[in-house]
């Protein structure tokens, strides 16, 4: 009886090990894929939103150039990413938004903006160096969130300098450590993203200049 027991033990142990191995393999396969999908989905959120917001701005009928003024005219051509200089002059702020009043400046494009977000757009004519800008903000829906407190936190902790984005396009005007400080204070998860896109700017004489549109977005 003893020798039989010894003979059976290695194979039964092996079978058990194989079963454990298969279970571990299945677990690893499911777990790694699950983690990958969720991580990517969460990390790409603010980036995607900044890109989409920029796309909405360069397609906005209030800013883009068209060959006819009647919006209902089926023959009107509206030119995506070709911004009308006269519209920029009349709708947006000429020059950069006053840094000291950045968070208090109302948006010139109130029809755009993600909820629980704050951002800006800056348009530069790279041939004449003219600059137009506006803040962008959406409705606030996080009920426990005190936006005024966030403003105070950011104003006390963040140095906003629009010129940074022209010297170093990848540098955020919101310094990350300061933002994180405010994030910790609000116990929320925030994210920032800055995206730049080439645009054309058409003036009243029909000349088209090369320009750049930059969108900065902070979400919480």
């Amino acid at each position, binding site marked *: 009886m003893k020798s039989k027991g010894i003979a059976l033990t290695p*194979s039964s142990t092996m079978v058990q090990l194989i079963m454990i191995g298969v279970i571990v393999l299945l677990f690893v396969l499911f777990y790694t*894929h699950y983690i990958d999908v969720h991580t990517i*989905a969460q990390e790409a959120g*603010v980036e995607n*939103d900044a890109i*989409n917001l920029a796309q909405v701005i360069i*397609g906005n009928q209030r800013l883009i150039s068209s060959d006819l003024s009647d919006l209902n005219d089926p023959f009107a051509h509206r030119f995506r990413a070709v911004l009308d200089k006269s519209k920029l002059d009349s709708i947006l702020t000429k020059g950069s938004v006053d840094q000291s009043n950045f968070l208090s400046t109302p948006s010139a494009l109130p029809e755009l903006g993600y909820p629980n977000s704050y951002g800006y757009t800056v348009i530069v004519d790279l041939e004449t160096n003219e600059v137009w800008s506006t803040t962008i903000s959406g409705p606030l829906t*996080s009920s426990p969130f005190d936006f005024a407190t966030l403003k105070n936190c950011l104003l006390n902790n963040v140095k906003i300098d629009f010129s940074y984005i022209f010297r170093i396009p990848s540098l955020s005007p919101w310094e990350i450590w300061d933002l994180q400080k405010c994030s910790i204070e609000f116990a929320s998860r925030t994210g920032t993203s800055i995206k730049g896109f080439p645009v054309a700017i058409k003036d009243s004489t029909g000349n088209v200049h090369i320009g750049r549109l930059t969108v900065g977005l902070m979400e919480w």
Partner: protein
Amino acid sequence: MRGQAKLTDSLFLVFSTFISVVIFYMIMSGAVSDMVALISLQSSEVVVRDIASFITVTGGAPDEIKIFYTPSDTFTYDLTVTNRTVNIIRLKDGQEVDRSTIFGYQFPSYGSYGKSAVDPEASFTNVNTFTISKFTQDQHYIYSIQGLRD
């Protein structure tokens, strides 16, 4: 003799196990990846992000646009779009499977789930096909969302 036979058996078992695991991984990793991707693509988190993005990109079209979106043939969804936030409940045979993050009530709000940058309002129950469109009316752009059960 018995001992030698056991050793051969053990070696064969180890070798065959190794080959089986390798083949299993090669075959199943693709299937698992596809299955997880399919489950993820139909989840309320992903569907709500897709719909919110579609709503936003309609604002980027300089002219009229219409987007058709059917995330699943198996599941249906309850959709609410209000105040630029999108919320989804995924249903199977009328029973809730999962739901997206609810803005304003659940904190933190996890970044960008269910946010749109433009202003349509809509509410549908038990639908699995969505039509998101932008058109002109009285010199204004109108955003519209329709939900249907396929």
